[in-house]
């Protein structure tokens, strides 16, 4: 079964454990500037929103890459950057509509979320359940359940 990162901003507190976990996974450093998942603070709305690559099926980045450095991991569905092939041309960063693939000047390559080979470090580190790794076909399950629970079944149980 394919799984998908599921982000629920309502549960996010902005602690950045996910960003540190991502940086640790890929750089053995907690420096959040290197994270592939970012938490955005919308201060005046009182909202924290984690955001990263959604692993598009028809991935703009993959299609745009002139050297085929981005490939599909068939097991996870992740679009993964092959660092050895990437030439750092940044065309993918222009092609991506969401800004979730970015150049890293330290390496001269681009980086994006690769779902950590099926065990995303961000989801493991999230203390509130704002980031989970769930059945890719059922990311709506929690929301559905919530609304199902609010359905009026019969007057006697109200």
């Amino acid at each position, binding site marked *: 079964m394919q799984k998908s990162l599921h982000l629920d901003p309502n549960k996010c507190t902005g602690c950045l*454990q996910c960003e*540190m*976990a991502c940086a640790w996974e890929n750089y053995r450093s*907690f420096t959040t*500037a290197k994270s592939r998942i970012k938490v955005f603070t919308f201060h005046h709305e009182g909202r924290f929103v984690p955001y990263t690559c959604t692993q598009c099926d028809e991935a703009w980045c993959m299609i745009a890459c002139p050297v085929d450095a981005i490939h599909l991991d068939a097991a996870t569905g992740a679009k993964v950057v092959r660092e050895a092939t990437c030439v750092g041309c940044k065309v993918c960063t222009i092609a991506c509509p969401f800004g979730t693939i970015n150049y890293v000047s330290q390496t001269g390559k681009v980086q994006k979320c690769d779902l950590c080979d099926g065990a995303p470090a961000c989801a493991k580190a999230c203390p509130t359940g704002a980031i989970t790794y769930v059945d890719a076909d059922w990311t709506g399950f929690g929301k559905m359940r919530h609304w199902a629970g609010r359905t009026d079944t019969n007057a006697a149980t109200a």
Partner: protein
Amino acid sequence: MAWTKNVLRVNLAAGTCTPEPLNMTWAQEYLGQRGLATKYFVSEVDPKVDPFSPENKLIFVTGPLTGTMAATGGRYSVITKGPLTGAIACSNSGGYFGAELKFAGWDMVIFEGASPKPVYLLVTDGQAELVDASDLWGKTVWETEEHIRKVHQDPQVRVAAIGRAGENRVLYAAIVNDLHRAAGRSGVGAVMGSKNLKAVAVRGTRTDAYRLADPEAFIAATEAGKKALAANGVTGQGLPTYGTQVLMNVINELGALPTRNHRDVQFEGAQAISGEAMHQKRATDGKPNLVTRGACFGCTIACGRISRMDPGHFTIKDKPQYQGASGGVEYEAAWALGAANGVSDLEALTYANYLCNEDGFDPISFGATVGAAMELYDLGILKKEEVGFEIPFGSAEAMVKLAEMTAKGEGFGREIGLGSKRLCAKYGRPELSMTVKGLEFPAYDSRALQGMGLAYATSNRGACHLRGYMVSPEVLGIPQKMEPQATEGKAAMLKAFQDLTAVVDSSGLCLFTTFAWGLPDIQSQIQAACEGDWSPEHLLLVGERIWNMEREFNLAAGLTGKDDKLPPRLMNEPAKTGPQKGAVSKLDVMLPEYYQVRGWTADGVPTADTRRRLGI
């Protein structure tokens, strides 16, 4: 090892930024943050220095666990000589700024001298420069952050700044980072203002800023720590749900909530300004004050409050800039802006708290000073003509008006900005100032909680609850229940708390973890991060060393054991109501025992034996 081993020395007079290696011998003796920076400070600064003279220094410092995955590992401290107290000032803040400084590759930044014109420090990894801030002088903390991010086209830069309160030398001005986290107490912002330093802006992107001693052990220890925080009732439920405001009703019911300048120990309006009230829908607009909770860097507790006011409230009706969400009241702020003045309007408290964040001043000292002014007014000593309007106890209008005036240094706000001690002295009633060593009390009454009274009297920065939080044993039963009115064993427990707190404040962790974590939990994380011996015994020795070092600085600055005292009201006027009715502080019984437990003389001076044992 978890130190970057780099110190940035900034000479504001000369305009130079010079890197130097961290003194690693001191790092082994004082750990980091509060302890290590205080060691630098006392080694370089004359204790008799005028806090506002260029000879005073100002140190921003992180701990070894700052900028790590350890839960709450994002703290930094600011160390200087405080203008309110004339004692060592050490103020601790969360948010994201401290971790960013660490990621840029710096353990600490030492500011020396004073700049001839307003400047801010811009740190981008290894690069540091002073930038002209003439355009920013007169601006708020919030405007300053926005401006710096815009000018450098970098929305990810983290900013710690002073507002107009720091510029105007409000003696309890704060340094505010990330819009609403503050090195809040003891006037560190006023010292920053005296140096013409408007802000410190940092961007840190280094992956090699520091190295952990044992990465695998560190990940294991921090994961265990997070589990313990989640499982604990205080850190896993109480604080996430209600923030520190979980205490308001508890402390009030215990009869330990100082009210109207400590005239009373219970506040009839406590419920209306409590954490529970923040969750309730308002009658006016049907929405609750609380929007959500917010975490500081790396914190899995998330006690921070994000509030949104009633847009129709009289304070912000025509001010759209305050109608969005922003940092809500914590317990101490709600107490000081509320109970200390008899004000029970939660929205007014929230507005005043916004002003404290926006212009950088401590809501505890501000609120307590307003409480003192209201008592002077109530007694007919302070007249309406001097203030410009009436300031009776309970007036939300008066409280918020004074908050607006204090930051800007307008009219009677100037007097409020000098703090309760100077205000009461000016009007000939020094005994009405509810302070220790010039610092205003926070939200626990010394008559009701005997150990807290001792903690206030002996705290190295004046009346502070965060140097030895005896509320833990006396109210919450952590690590064991102690009767509030008992004096037996309080001195020894307080010493243990003070020493452990000094360790936590030197590590990069938040003190709130200690509701769930004991020394072994903290020790395992420090040991995995830092090379060297960080056994529990060594850590407690480090804590005790830090405490005594601060004490010696204060003694050299001119304070004595005679300053370890509480205001006469708390010694002589019995609590009027509640479970502690009739109680006064028994400080006289506890203090000699405390000196003894500390290894100090009867005058409160560390003995030669103690100094030798601690290596100071």
